[in-house]
């Protein structure tokens, strides 16, 4: 544990020291006395590998934190990535990364669990392992504990992090976490006292560790990378996936089935999260209302990997939302899911909570609305009085391309909703589009500009002069990134040069003073793509980049494309192989080792449908 007297010196002149002090309301970890009296307690560090303000906005972390700490045998504490100024302080003072609650150094935990929420966190994960005083590569970590694992959205392709993780969890963590800690608990208890002799022999130690990992691998959704490897063809594609470890009894490759929480109401919706002291990115009560999405947009990974669609019972949600607002004191609540306007009883939920009579003023936010009349009605309820803005994601400019990507918004719907929005008094609209989608033509890109211009035209018709002068249209552009477990998983990503060209073309064709164009760096998107579709050569790339100082790659100020290009070449890998290359339909894919619950045939069928341009309808908006 960190000496309490040291924290002052560590935090002197550090930016936002509130990030590192814990001390929030709603902490659930065991206290030091308890840990001293119960030395067999299994200690888990839950790490979100980004800065506190981002990590504390993550609902998954808070859910697992609560589940673990509800068990008297287990203790969970939180840690986040130190901002570069604090990393520097930690390194210079030779202080290991510590948890917020009891300031226990991370290498003293039994389990360190990372949330690999997206690919651009990978270097932060390596950095956190290193700052904990551990070897970043799992095979070099000889001690029984801590085990290092990760879960989260991007773990569905486990290979890029495979060399660093003792195990990885694919799917929902609610049930799995207790099973994992149960196994660790058995080993901890068994070797807590007599570790002195038996485990002193490296051979014994290795055997016990392997046995423990083998035990863990029997849990649904748990992938132990050291038990598998990829065999490559001479052209660098994968020849086969082989099972290399675990028990001698195993033949052939067992696919890792994603863990699924079937009854979404079986775990209470979290109503007493830790309430941060400093302002966070989503500083509000987050209530998950659904998991999964039933729409199946062909580019959308979450839409497939979080299946099946599970809606929580509205009665429970109303109760837990109200309870949560009372317990946390938040004045804002967000009903989260991949596509919240698809929740059947959304209107009832919002009304019951805001009109409960218990709160004078509660604001509601919804992260994801569709562009239809129902959503508009909902938006009206939650933005009553102060129309802050509407966000829509048509993703593609033309009906043809929207059909291809299966984005279920018709041109008429789009037009009508926008018209209705203006008539109801909105003047701020945000639109999301993707560039570089499969089967995209120049006309589709022009259609983005045309759509935007048509919206201005509609605004002119619907708004009076004064409102019209306040019109603000923000157009946000992302580069398409082919993701595992989508019908577009085989598609090539557009090269950076072409993407930049397309952005420039858009810039020129959308030149209205009402429109602001934002885009995410195509360079970043290409690195993200390489990690999404990467294989077992990617760990070397991440390691090289981390060694060169890559951190916080999701932060524009820190992302350094040149550094990544160098890192690929150091590791002897070609980024184009993972990005701009079209993968073969018959190729063994790195993520074939995971059974996400949807057959590959289905993705092939969906891809073929897209290619055939089903529902061809060139009614442009």
């Amino acid at each position, binding site marked *: 544990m960190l000496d309490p007297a040291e924290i002052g010196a560590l935090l002197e002149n550090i930016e936002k020291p509130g990030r590192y002090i814990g001390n929030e*309301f709603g902490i659930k970890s065991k206290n030091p006395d308890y840990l001293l009296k119960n030395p067999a307690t299994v200690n888990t560090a839950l790490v979100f590998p980004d800065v506190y303000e981002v990590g504390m906005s993550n609902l998954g972390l808070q859910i697992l934190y609560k589940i673990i700490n509800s068990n008297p045998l287990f203790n969970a504490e939180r840690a986040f990535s130190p901002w570069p100024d604090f990393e520097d302080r930690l390194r210079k003072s030779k202080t290991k990364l510590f948890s917020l609650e009891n300031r226990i150094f991370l290498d003293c935990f039994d389990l360190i669990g990372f949330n690999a929420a997206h690919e651009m966190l990978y270097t932060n994960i390596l950095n956190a392992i290193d700052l904990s005083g551990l070897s970043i590569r799992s095979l070099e970590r000889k001690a029984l504990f801590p085990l290092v694992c990760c879960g989260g959205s991007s773990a569905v392709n486990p290979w890029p992090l495979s060399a660093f993780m003792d195990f990885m969890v694919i799917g929902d963590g609610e049930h799995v976490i207790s099973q994992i800690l149960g196994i660790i608990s058995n080993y901890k208890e068994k070797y807590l006292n007599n570790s002195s002799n038996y485990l002193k022999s490296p051979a014994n130690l290795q055997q016990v560790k392997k046995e423990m990992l083998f035990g863990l691998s029997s849990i649904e959704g748990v992938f132990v990378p050291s038990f598998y490897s990829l065999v490559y063809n001479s052209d660098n594609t994968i020849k086969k996936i082989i099972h290399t470890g675990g028990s001698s009894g195993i033949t052939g490759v067992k696919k890792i089935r994603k863990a699924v929480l079937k009854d979404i109401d079986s775990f209470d919706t979290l109503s007493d999260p830790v309430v941060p002291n400093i302002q966070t990115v989503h500083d509000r009560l987050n209530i998950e209302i659904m998991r999964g999405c039933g729409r199946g947009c062909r580019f959308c990974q979450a839409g497939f990997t979080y299946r099946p669609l599970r809606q929580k019972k509205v009665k429970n949600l109303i109760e837990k939302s109200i309870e949560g607002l009372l317990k946390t004191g938040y004045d804002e609540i967000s009903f989260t899911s991949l596509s919240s306007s698809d929740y059947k009883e959304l209107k009832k939920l919002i009304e019951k909570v805001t009109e409960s009579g218990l709160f004078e003023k509660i604001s509601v936010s919804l992260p994801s609305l569709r562009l239809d009349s129902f959503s508009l009605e909902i938006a009206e309820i939650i933005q009553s009085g102060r129309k802050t803005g509407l966000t829509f994601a048509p993703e593609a400019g033309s009906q043809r391309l929207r059909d291809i990507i299966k984005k279920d918004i018709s041109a008429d719907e789009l037009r009508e909703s926008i018209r209705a929005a203006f008539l109801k008094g909105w003047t701020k609209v945000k639109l999301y589009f993707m560039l570089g989608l499969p089967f995209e033509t120049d006309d589709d890109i022009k259609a983005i500009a045309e759509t935007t211009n048509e919206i201005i035209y509609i605004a002119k018709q619907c708004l009076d002069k004064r409102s019209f002068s306040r019109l603000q249209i923000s157009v946000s552009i992302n580069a398409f990134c082919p993701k595992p477990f989508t019908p577009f998983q085989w598609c090539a990503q557009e090269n950076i040069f072409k993407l930049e060209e397309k952005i420039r073309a858009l810039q020129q064709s959308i030149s209205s003073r009402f429109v602001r164009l934002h885009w995410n760096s195509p360079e970043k998107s290409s690195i993200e793509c390489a990690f999404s579709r990467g294989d077992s050569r990617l760990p070397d790339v991440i390691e090289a980049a981390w060694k060169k100082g890559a951190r916080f790659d999701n932060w524009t100020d820190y992302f350094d494309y040149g550094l990544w290009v160098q890192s690929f070449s150091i590791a002897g890998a070609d980024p184009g192989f993972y990005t701009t290359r079209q993968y073969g339909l018959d190729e063994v894919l790195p993520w074939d080792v995971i059974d996400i619950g949807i057959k590959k045939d289905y993705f092939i069928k969906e891809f073929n449908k897209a290619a055939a341009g089903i529902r061809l309808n060139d009614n442009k908006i």
Partner: protein
Amino acid sequence: MIIRFKYCKKNEAKYLSHLDMLRILSRSIARAGIKAALSRGFNPKPRITLSNPIPLGVQSLAEYADVEVDVCLDTGYFMKVINSCLPENIIVLDAACTCNKLKSLMSVIDVVLYEFIIEAADNMSLDKIKSFIDAYDSSSIYSFFTQAQQKKIFLLKIYGYAKIFNNNSNRIFKFNDFNKALKQFGQSNGLHIKDSSKTAVFIIKGARLADPFEEVV
């Protein structure tokens, strides 16, 4: 109606800023089930005002806040519930309720008392440090206390002005500047600041220093 309360920010809580405190107190009051009056406008916020901001990293035993409520509460009850709803190391120490209108804390507070615990290398430094403080600001009011057993450790209490008075050519006491100067001075004179904190605030009433609670009663 206004509840004025005094609270401390101890230990790690000293790393929370003025804006953090506003948010933390608003939420704690809501958690306690106390309905604060709301400000007007599209984005109504609870009407809470705080005493003068204190630099990040300085412990305080004397922070004050005013919260506007619709009904007067028993202050004992208020303290009990609010203290069960606050994060660790932030503790409400006293409270009073009034129907009177109050001038804002920031406008009435005249003097802030800071305390430094200083370790000296030799017994001579006391005079040296006195001349240092006089040179730093000749209008400073301060006093020293030494402990019988530990001669080398002494307590410096310094009363800093929180505002400029019309007929007085005083300076506003800036904690960070003084602290920095004292540190530098200490480095070359064998002094080490072991701890520092804000321990009281006062309103000048005639020739007397009055507690902010006097306004309420």
